[in-house]
């Protein structure tokens, strides 16, 4: 005779719990963490390196790079002067909270205001795995096409901000911005978005200013909570 036991538990609840712990570590260090997600080749690393220039003198930034293999991205970031550490997932298609927790040991959080976590390039899996970030940011690049919100609704639905990258390519590739924005608006009404080109620098300053404001607001709320 079999007996049914009610469980009613989220499948990834144990990852969620570790993500909460990671976030507390960021909180107590006073470091704001951003999880950047996008498809491969959307321009995540270039955006992050350009952001460093825009944030110079305003926020101290570090980066955790996630890839299946290689340290190419961390090397690029380090060459640009960013404190950087690399996670190699060894085949896993996403970062999870345990991996990020381990990577924290390689960054001196006390010297930072902001940590950018560059997730594995993938629009499917990373969104399900919380990693302790305060904000989830999606980068959609123009050459990927305007139909991505419709094809990857989960990715667009569960983020807090959107960067539309490589807008310098708009004259050269077919991309219906209205169709794209309609899909985004349906899945995530009022989502803040930043059209920009990391290559030409267009739009970078607006995005950087938004980020500085967001981190400063967060820090002032944090100190109020701690009193």
């Amino acid at each position, binding site marked *: *005779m*079999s*007996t*049914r*036991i*009610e*469980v*009613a*538990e*989220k*499948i*990834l*609840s*144990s*990852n969620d719990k570790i993500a909460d712990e990671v976030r507390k570590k960021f909180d107590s260090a006073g470091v704001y963490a951003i999880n950047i997600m996008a498809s491969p080749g959307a321009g995540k690393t270039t955006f992050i390196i350009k952001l460093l220039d825009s944030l110079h003198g305003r926020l101290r930034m570090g980066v955790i790079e996630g890839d299946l293999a290689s340290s190419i991205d961390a090397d690029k970031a380090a060459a640009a002067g960013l404190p950087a550490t690399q996670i190699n997932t060894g085949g*896993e*298609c*996403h970062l*999870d909270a345990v991996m990020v927790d381990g990577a924290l040991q390689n960054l001196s959080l006390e010297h930072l205001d902001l940590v950018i976590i560059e997730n594995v390039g*993938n629009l*499917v*899996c990373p969104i*399900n*795995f919380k990693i302790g970030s305060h904000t989830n940011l999606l980068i959609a690049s123009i050459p990927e096409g305007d*139909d991505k919100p*419709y094809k990857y*609704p*989960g990715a667009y*639905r*569960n983020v807090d901000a959107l960067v539309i990258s490589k807008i310098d390519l708009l004259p050269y590739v077919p991309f219906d911005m209205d169709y794209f924005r*309609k*899909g985004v*608006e*349906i*899945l995530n*009404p009022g989502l803040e978005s930043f059209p920009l080109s990391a290559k030409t620098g267009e739009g970078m300053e607006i995005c950087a200013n938004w980020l500085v404001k967001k981190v400063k607001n967060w820090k002032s709320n944090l100190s109020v909570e701690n009193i």
Partner: protein
Amino acid sequence: MHELAVTQSILTIALENAQKVDAKQITGINLQIGQMASLVDDSIQFYWDILSEGTIAIGAKLNIERVPIEMRCFDCGNLFSPSPDTFDCPKCNSIRVQVIQGDEMRVISIDVE
């Protein structure tokens, strides 16, 4: 693609709950997975067969209830399943709509002996 990590979590949850009641065998796992959760049933089953080996969950039947994507229109109140290439309300064409279900990933219950 992330079914390995997901299946590992399902197994952990099942074994923990079975242990609480001193079960000898887990015979079934009842899951609720939304259409938007990007998980493939066959792939979960594939990893399940490998991961459950050597545990009391070996041979357990995975019952996956698929939750369809459902949306509600703010303008006319219509409840609908969106077509794959557009999410407009099919009744009034409004884009002021909200996803109300479809991204669930839950272990609902387990069957034990």
